[in-house]
Structures are given as structure tokens and as C-alpha cells.
């Protein structure tokens, strides 16, 4: 993009128009002492010196990369095929922004349409939108959809086994108090909420129940049983999930979830210390008017040719501002494109294969950890690629030991609950092979 600075003449004309002669007249209201303060800055660096300094600083980070990390807890290390960044860096796609004059951007709309189609297939739902900021905000928006669809019901219940960060975002979204949020405690028995945990809350003012599948601790809760109970009470089930487990597990939409939200980072988006990520939001078709954000649709033009449009825009902020379903009227364009290319690159069979490898590596890791003296697995039932393990020493000491060997350990659950300070949430993906896991085990055994 070309940057055109104002010329001296432009400035003179502008100042004449607004009736001033000196630029300083514009900033005259700012006290002299703070107008042009002396900043205590180090001496200017040349570009070469600055590059060296930044590179020194960057080398002090231990960045997650294939094979060196067992940390998941919502952000996952996966191999990203070269096709993803190659296509992403094309000028036609390379923008973080949703199209604002959309119909001239047929290629972008087609990518969004394909993204939506693949997300709906992955999550097992009828519809999906053009993406949200991240998994946590997608979940909060999904919860609001359940409330606005049910009109007279005003209460949401969130399981204690939902990601603590997601629960925090939900709390923030609902902090105005117009919607009542009930948070269940972290389930200590096998780290899983049971369908009966929700029974006391199935009242006629319940709008929805929020669960996670697999849950934050890796346990696979009974979505079908909760869905049946919630539906019998006339409410909706909102499920937070992740893409990779769905390579093996039945998708939440097929198990009766009404609204499904997911963090899409695992689909070809680098971990990048927390963002930008991409939220997936999908639901039954009957929620289409409550769904925030953008929706691309396929249509035919006046010549009968296939084309793409943004559809149902009346739900959005820019047409009916005061009645908008949400203040989100954009999408995470670049990251959604990455997810689309990732899914297309792997295909259904490749995706299942990646999921299978995650599963087997994680189960090998769990088995090896459980064989160490004093180590104990924390879940009662099946898991996918993440699980709780109790160590004989504080989790932070385990992680410190691993870090000196260049390995990023698990998530210290003491952060969530101080009584769990010996518990780690460990994750393995297709990037953690047996040799790497054996090395981890030998360090811990030493």
C-alpha cells in the first residue's frame, strides 16, 4: 500500500480552512510541560543493531515446536503443512479483515463458504458461521444465542469442567447481570461432570447448559445424556470442543448439541503465544437469526452462474444496530483461511490419521508416566490426546526439571485449584513420537 504524506501545501490549505496559522495552535490546550516532554530513551539504534538486539531477546524464549512440548490446555502443537502458509501469503488472501465490500471478493467469499461447510461437517451441525475471534468468545456468543433464542429463559449453567479461561470470558460477557450465570465447581471425581450434576438446574427458566467435550481435563463426558436431559427441560445444550478429537470422536452436533463452539487453532494456525486464533461457531439451522458474525451463502447470479454472497446480514450490527444479535460483525479472515487450507490439505482421511496419531502418542505417554514410581493417572475413563496425571512432587518442580532439558511440560493444575498443585494436564499430539516421549520419561525417572 502506498503511503501519501501531506505536502507542505496540503497542510497550509488545511490550516487555512480551519482558521489557524500554526500547527501548535491545535495542541495549545495541552499544558506546555507535557506537550513535548523529554523522554528518557536509550540512544537510537541502527537497523542492524536493533535486529541483533531483538534476535538476542527472541532466543531467550523457548518456543513450542514439533516434539518439544506436552502443553495443551486449549492450544495445541500440530504440524502445519507448507501448503497452508504458501496459500495464506498470497496477496488475494493476505488480510486479517473480513470483506466489507464483499461481493467483489468472490474468492474470499468462496473460501468462507468452504470454511463454513467444513466446520459444519466437522462439528456435526447444520450451519456454521464465517468464524469468530477465538474459542472462548465463540463459546460466549453461543451461550448468548441460546438465551436470545429462548426469549423468556434467562439462566445459563456452565460445567466446572469447562476451560477456566472460557468460563472467565463467559463471566465477562454476562457481567451486566441481565443473564444469570451459575458456575458448577470443578468436578473432583475423575475430573468429569456427570449428567446428574445438572439435574438440580433443569428448571423452566433455564436457557442452556454449557459443557466441554472432551472437557478441560481431557475426560470425555456423556454429551448425549446431557443433551436429552436439557432438551426434556426445554433448554439448549451448548458444547465447547476442539477440532482434532473429532477426527475420532462423534461430533457434538450428532450427539444432540444445539450450539457448538470450538477453538480452531489446531487447524493449521501456529500457537504464537496465544493468538491470533480462530473461533468456530456452529448450530442447528433454527438458530441462524441468532447467530452473530458473518455468513457466506451460495447463490446464482443473473446469468445463472454460481456466485457467493454475504447472507442474512440483517442480523448484523451495520443494518439494525440497536437490534443487533451481537457486536461481532466481522470474522477472523486470515486464520479461517488457514483452517480451510489445512482441512483441505489433509482431507477427511488425513485428518483421521492425524487424530489417530494424537490418540496413540498420548496413550503411550500416559502409560509410560503411570509406570513411573509415585505417578498416577487422574481420569476414570477414556481420553483423547490430553489427560490428568498426579506427580509425586509439585507440578511446577516437574516442569522446571523438564524446562532445563528444553522440554515444555504439562499444564500445572495448581493454577486452577491450589489443591491440585501436584497434578499436571499432559498432552501429546502427532508431533510427540515415541523417541521424544521416552526421552521425557528418562528425564523424569532420573
Amino acid at each position: 500500500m502506498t503511503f501519501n504524506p501531506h505536502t507542505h501545501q496540503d497542510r497550509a490549505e488545511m490550516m487555512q480552512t480551519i482558521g489557524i496559522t500554526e500547527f501548535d495552535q491545535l495542541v495549545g490546550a495541552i499544558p506546555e510541560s507535557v506537550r513535548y516532554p523529554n523522554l528518557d530513551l536509550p540512544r537510537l539504534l541502527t537497523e542492524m543493531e536493533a535486529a541483533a538486539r531483538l534476535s538476542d531477546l527472541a532466543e531467550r524464549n523457548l518456543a513450542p515446536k514439533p516434539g518439544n512440548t506436552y502443553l495443551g490446555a486449549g492450544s495445541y502443537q500440530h504440524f502445519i503443512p507448507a501448503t497452508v502458509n504458501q496459500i495464506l501469503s498470497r496477496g488475494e488472501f493476505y488480510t486479517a479483515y473480513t470483506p466489507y465490500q464483499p461481493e467483489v471478493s468472490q474468492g474470499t467469499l468462496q473460501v468462507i463458504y468452504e470454511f463454513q461447510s467444513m466446520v459444519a461437517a466437522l462439528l456435526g451441525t447444520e450451519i456454521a458461521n464465517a468464524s469468530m475471534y477465538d474459542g472462548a468468545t465463540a463459546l460466549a456468543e453461543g451461550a448468548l444465542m441460546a438465551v436470545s433464542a429462548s426469549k423468556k429463559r434467562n439462566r445459563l449453567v456452565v460445567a466446572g469442567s469447562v476451560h477456566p479461561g472460557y468460563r472467565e470470558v463467559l463471566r465477562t460477557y454476562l457481567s451486566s447481570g441481565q443473564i444469570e450465570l451459575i458456575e458448577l465447581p470443578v468436578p473432583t471425581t475423575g475430573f468429569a461432570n456427570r449428567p446428574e450434576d445438572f439435574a438440580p438446574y433443569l428448571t423452566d427458566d433455564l436457557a442452556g447448559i454449557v459443557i466441554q467435550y472432551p472437557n478441560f481435563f481431557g475426560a470425555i463426558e456423556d454429551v448425549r445424556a446431557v443433551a436429552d436431559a436439557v432438551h426434556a427441560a426445554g433448554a439448549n445444550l451448548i458444547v465447547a470442543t476442539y477440532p482434532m478429537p473429532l477426527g475420532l470422536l462423534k461430533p457434538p452436533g450428532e450427539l444432540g448439541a444445539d450450539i457448538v463452539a470450538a477453538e480452531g487453532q489446531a487447524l493449521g494456525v501456529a500457537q504464537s503465544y496465544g493468538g491470533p486464533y480462530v473461533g468456530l461457531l456452529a448450530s442447528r439451522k433454527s438458530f441462524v437469526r441468532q447467530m452473530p458474525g458473518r455468513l457466506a451463502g451460495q447463490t446464482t447470479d443473473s446469468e445463472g452462474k454460481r456466485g457467493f454472497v454475504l447472507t442474512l446480514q440483517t442480523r448484523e450490527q451495520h443494518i439494525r444496530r440497536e437490534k443487533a444479535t451481537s457486536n461481532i460483525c466481522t470474522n477472523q479472515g486470515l486464520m479461517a483461511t488457514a483452517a480451510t487450507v489445512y482441512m483441505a490439505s489433509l482431507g477427511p482421511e488425513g485428518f483421521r490419521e492425524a487424530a489417530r496419531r494424537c490418540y496413540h502418542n498420548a496413550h503411550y505417554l500416559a502409560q509410560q508416566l503411570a509406570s513411573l514410581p509415585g505417578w498416577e493417572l487422574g481420569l476414570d475413563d477414556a481420553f483423547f490426546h490430553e489427560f490428568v496425571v498426579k506427580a509425586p512432587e509439585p507440578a511446577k518442580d516437574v516442569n522446571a526439571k523438564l524446562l532445563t532439558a528444553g522440554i515444555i511440560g504439562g499444564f500445572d493444575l495448581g493454577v486452577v485449584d491450589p489443591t491440585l498443585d501436584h497434578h499436571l494436564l499432559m498432552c501429546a499430539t502427532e508431533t510427540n513420537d515415541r523417541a521424544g516421549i521416552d526421552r521425557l520419561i528418562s528425564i523424569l525417572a532420573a
Partner: protein
Amino acid sequence: MSAPSDLRFTKTHEWVRLDGDVATIGITDHAQKELGDITYVELPEAGDAVAQNQPFGIVESVKAASDIYAPLDGEVVERNESLLTAPDLVNASPYDDAWFIKIRLKDTAQVEALMASDAYDEFADDSAH
């Protein structure tokens, strides 16, 4: 088309047909023409209260999304389910098949303040320009 003489009208382009203490409510022919092809109608449920001059429903067309205002105070006794699946009825038959809701009135005298058909025709003519 001139507005039917047996109906009463609002400045927000709703019509009212009174039958005892039950009023049937819809939007006018003028309104559906201004909106263009109607693609979606959202209606309250039986038992819901509606209040005069307050929105009770939404109509979306290819051009716009608009609130529909209750001409009178009352309680919904029935809604036109067929509009939910066939919103284009509003374009085809605004005064007959495409009624929106029937409400039991709190105060039938409120009807007197609404416009008669000739007054509405004049009003709609003016607002069209």
C-alpha cells in the same frame, strides 16, 4: 390499492380488524410494497402481552429489517403460523392471508384513535414522497 374501509390503521403502517374484543393485526399493502420481497417474519407467542406503540415482531425483506408495532394494548391469542414458513404471503395477501397476530384487547376504545382508511390512504400517499 386503496386501504380496505373496514380496517383501522397506524402511522407505522399496521392495520387492525376489530371483532368483538379481539383485534387482528397485519401490515398494509403500502408497507409490503415499500419493503419489497419479504423473507422472514418473527412473531410473539400466544399468551405474550403486547403494548401500544411497542414492537411485537420483526419483518425482514431483501431491502431491510423492520420492527412491527402493536397498534393497541392486549394479549396475543393466536399468531399466523403460516407466515413463519411462507413469509412471502405478506407480499401476496397483506390484508387477508397474511394477518400477523390476533390479540385480546385491554381497552377497545383505543381503536377509535386509529386512522380510518381514507385518512391512511392520504397519509401513505404523503409518506411515499
